[in-house]
């Protein structure tokens, strides 16, 4: 009996606890991301933002969650029931799933796999299905148009993201697909310094991947009402909403890991470089990039669709391809 406990139950329990240790703070972070967005945009527009529920409005996410839970679930006429309910779950689950490989300290990631970067890229490229499925299953014009826009947009920007990932992997060298190795390779110099143009291109592509302003055409209010999640209500809507913010945090964490030295401290003095400080650095950097996401939304007007496609295919793709060739040329030429 004790043997069974030690060999089967305890390891399984340990895995579950490890996962919870990452997912619970993540979900809290996602909940407060919704508040942060409203507060940041309010600040940019000289307003106060939510400040009624709790001190400075800190209990606002809970109030929102409770409200959404008690709303009625509405299924549009002629909607495809299974796909309709599957889509928000898929969006949310995929946004959580990708965190499995994120290195949070130098010796902690839920799964420290060899091809962590490819896994991350694969999971984030699946995110488009939640949107396409919701658009199709709603049996409604606006969600369908939103889903079509989103599919084309996400596939386009994935191409340059893939090339940027290749640049990073080439720079790291052997074992470059492992996220821990990528972070360790930045101990002396962050990749944001070496690959500064790619850092910018990656961040803008991340904006397009998460359908955020200025690339939020899939949910463009002025022409598509709300885009792909127009027909959703109650918890289904909440799942889409949280999935979007979880994706923002994921993309921020990915940018931090690839370019801003992940969990590494920017200065190695006193206790700042200690291992226990690493999750804090990781969170701070991720929060900063997530803040830039909100900042951009408060500042930049929306792109037109042809401009979006032009930027993706005619500017970012050649630029990132050129950078791959340049990087590999320099590394091979100078024997680095």
């Amino acid at each position: 009996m004790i043997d069974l406990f030690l060999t089967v139950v305890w390891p399984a329990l340990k895995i579950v606890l490890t996962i919870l240790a990452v997912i619970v703070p993540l979900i809290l972070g996602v909940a407060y991301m919704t508040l942060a967005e409203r507060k940041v945009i309010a600040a940019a527009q000289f307003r106060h933002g939510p400040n009624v529920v709790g001190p400075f409005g800190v209990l606002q996410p809970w109030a929102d969650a409770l409200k959404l839970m008690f709303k009625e679930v509405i299924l549009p006429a002629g909607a495809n029931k299974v796909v309709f309910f599957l889509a928000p779950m898929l969006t949310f689950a995929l946004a959580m799933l990708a965190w499995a490989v994120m290195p949070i300290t130098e010796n902690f990631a839920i799964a420290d796999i060899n091809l962590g970067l490819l896994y991350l890229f694969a999971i984030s490229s699946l995110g488009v299905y939640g949107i396409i499925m919701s658009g199709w299953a709603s049996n409604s014009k606006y969600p369908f148009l939103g889903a079509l826009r989103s599919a084309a947009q996400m596939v386009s920007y994935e191409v340059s993201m893939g090339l940027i990932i290749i640049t990073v992997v080439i720079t790291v060298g052997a074992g470059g697909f492992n996220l821990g190795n990528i972070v360790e390779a930045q101990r002396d110099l962050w990749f944001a310094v070496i690959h500064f143009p790619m850092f910018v291109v990656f961040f803008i592509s991340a904006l397009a991947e998460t359908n955020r302003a200025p690339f939020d055409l899939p949910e463009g209010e002025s022409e598509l009402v709300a885009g792909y999640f127009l027909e959703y209500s109650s918890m289904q809507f909440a799942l889409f909403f949280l999935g979007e913010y979880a994706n923002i945090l994921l993309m921020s964490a990915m940018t931090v890991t690839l370019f801003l030295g992940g969990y590494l401290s920017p200065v190695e003095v006193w206790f700042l470089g200690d291992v226990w400080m690493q999750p804090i650095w990781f969170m701070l950097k991720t929060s900063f990039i997530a803040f830039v996401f909100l900042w951009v939304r408060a500042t930049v007007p929306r792109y037109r669709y042809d401009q979006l496609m032009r930027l993706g295919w005619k500017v970012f793709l050649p630029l990132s391809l050129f950078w791959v060739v340049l990087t590999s040329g320099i590394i091979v030429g100078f024997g680095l």
Partner: protein
Amino acid sequence: MEEIITGLTFYLFAAVTIASAIMVVGSRNAVHSVLFLILAFFTCSALFVLRGAEFVAMILVIVYVGAVAVLFLFVVMMLHVGENRLFQGVRRFGVVGVLVGLAVAAELIIVISTRAFRQDTPAVASNPTTADLNVTEALGQILYTDYFLLFQMSGLVLLVAMIGAITLTLRQRDGVKKQSIPQQIERKREDAVALRKVESGKGIG
């Protein structure tokens, strides 16, 4: 214990793969078919992971699920294939379909019964996977040395296909307003806006 879990996972994913592959053909709704196809791809990549071929698994998800199947779904969603039209040709083309199916099945049986697929035979010479090489490296070693020409040729075939698709769909239309980005950037406030003092009751002549 670990073997039991691995075995169970294998059978789980294998069963899902086969079931969804059957549903691809059997589903009455074309969009459902594509969704099941995506599920089949995904479970296939899970099987690759179980076999230790992580790189192939990830590439399968990124390329097929993340890009190809999205466009596929895109097209099928736009077509609005009804149930009736989906099964229209069953009687006419049924015989041909069965013949093709039998041919493919026969080919599969012949391939599987050859020596290369037998478990007890040692690894084939063209497969340099050793203990100190992981799958990604092994794949790169083969692709960029032994099969370099074939690899380049398949790339060229794709390039030709891409150029073909572009030339087939490219058409020059007249009377379309297009934005010239350099011109747009060159444009200054002075070129577009003029401030005039308008006298009341007269207007600008």
